């Protein structure tokens, strides 16, 4: 796993801790919405902003489909970094 993906994983961990949602017990397959972490639009916007602050771009703002799982967010940075 590339460095950016590790950083993204740390950002997601920090974010989940800040919003008091599943700081532990999540993995790449965990869904961002619904029965998974259950992000609402404001929380997703917050994660989007945190990722943008760290990397300058984020998968929620990049256009196209929104990420569905944690792994989709990490994959965005794998693509970006190659």
């Amino acid at each position, binding site marked *: 796993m590339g460095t950016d993906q590790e950083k993204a994983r740390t950002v997601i961990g920090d974010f989940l801790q800040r919003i008091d949602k599943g700081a532990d017990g999540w993995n790449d397959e965990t869904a961002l919405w619904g029965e998974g972490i259950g992000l609402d639009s404001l929380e997703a916007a917050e994660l989007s*902003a945190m990722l943008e602050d760290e990397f300058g771009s984020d998968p929620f703002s990049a256009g196209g489909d929104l990420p569905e799982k944690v792994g989709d967010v990490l994959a965005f940075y794998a693509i970006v970094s190659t």
Partner: protein
Amino acid sequence: MILLLEAAAASSPDREAVVTSQGSSTYGELLEDARRVATALRRRGITSFAVVEPDAAWVLRLLAGAALAGAEPCQYQPDTDATEFADHASMLDHKFVVTRRDDLTGSFELIRPESLVAEEADDALRAGANTEQPQPLMIRTTGTTGLPKAARHDWRILGKTVANVRPMPEQRWLLAYGPQQFAGVQVLLHVAASQATLVAPFPRQPKDGLDALLTKGVTCVSATPTFWRFLLAEAKSRKATLPPLEQITLGGESSPGDLLEEIQTTFPTAKVSQVYASTEFGSITSVRDGKPGLAVDSLWSESNPTSNVRVTDGELCVRAGAGMLGYAGESPTVSSAAGPDDTENGEWRRTGDLVEIVGDRVMFRGRQSEVINVGGVKVHPLPVEDRITSLDSVALARVFGRPSKLTGAIVAAEIVPVGGVERADVESIRTQIKEAVADLPRAWQPRSVTFVDAIETKGGKTIRGMED
């Protein structure tokens, strides 16, 4: 301005009128210089000109001289960007620019201030200002919420706001605003009317204001709440012992309750006033009870028919007391700044300031242009900012809108921690902020919190609204 200067010079010609980093001038000297400037303007046939000058003594000479000659000056921030200035000078058709800067270029003639002082003043101008003749002045808005506009005023109308000011020669007023701002012009007028001394450092940053408080015998200060927050934070970091002040005037922005308390605690003997004024509407009202907002019973009503303030649909509406004649390029009878007119007699104007009546107070919620639309929820940044700045760990804060693809915008905050970012426990401050805003609607709660060492301001005011 010229009439006040004439009165002060006649009463006390040797009294110190202005102190700047370049020296000081008495009222007698200023008046003589103003007459010589007026003479030069008349001889050169200059009827309007731009001023780009940092030294307040020069500004006073030029403004008063222009008033005496009936010429219209228009000031710019001394460090204004040359390209931006060229655009504005072209828009406002400035043919002459009085400045000591060499980098300003455009279709205008540059005149150094000292070359606009005739060797001798014309005898006719020594007879005193002609009150029948217009004394025009153009004041550009700070452009905090958009592009600056230029409002046309007349000194004779502006002077009405200080008609009841009595001489207070022992007072020494700090010029914390730029003299190109409406609030700065108000300070110049007040100082001249009270025949006091203007202490005008340059630059005019809060740290320079603090230096002036500590070393120049300042007794009175008029400044924005943002300026005060910075000044008090600077004083704390320097562990400075602040001198007592006689008068503190806040304006240009809403004054949060915690700041008013801090000012009262820091300067227990000072009289504290909050002024409601704008470049377009002039000085409308002031509050002296030390509480944030306006008293509800100060609003216009059938039992209070002389009030110039009322609330319509959650927005403050005013009747201009000493307002502008119009914007540059408009007919003097048109005042589009005022917004749509919604009253029967046409004299009330919308201000763009959003308010809410809470108990017996009219509380400011921010500018209409500052409202952040978070997924359809309208968020006013001021109440959020007030909660954050009331935290002991926060020296300064700015709340604004940050674009978001998901919700249109999110509420963002920049925080200057007490003691600086390096020494701050930022995670602890994040938690405190979260708790401080927990009872606000979720859309109002900051979703982006960044820690910075300084917050950018414009014209001494905090910039809110949407970030680009």
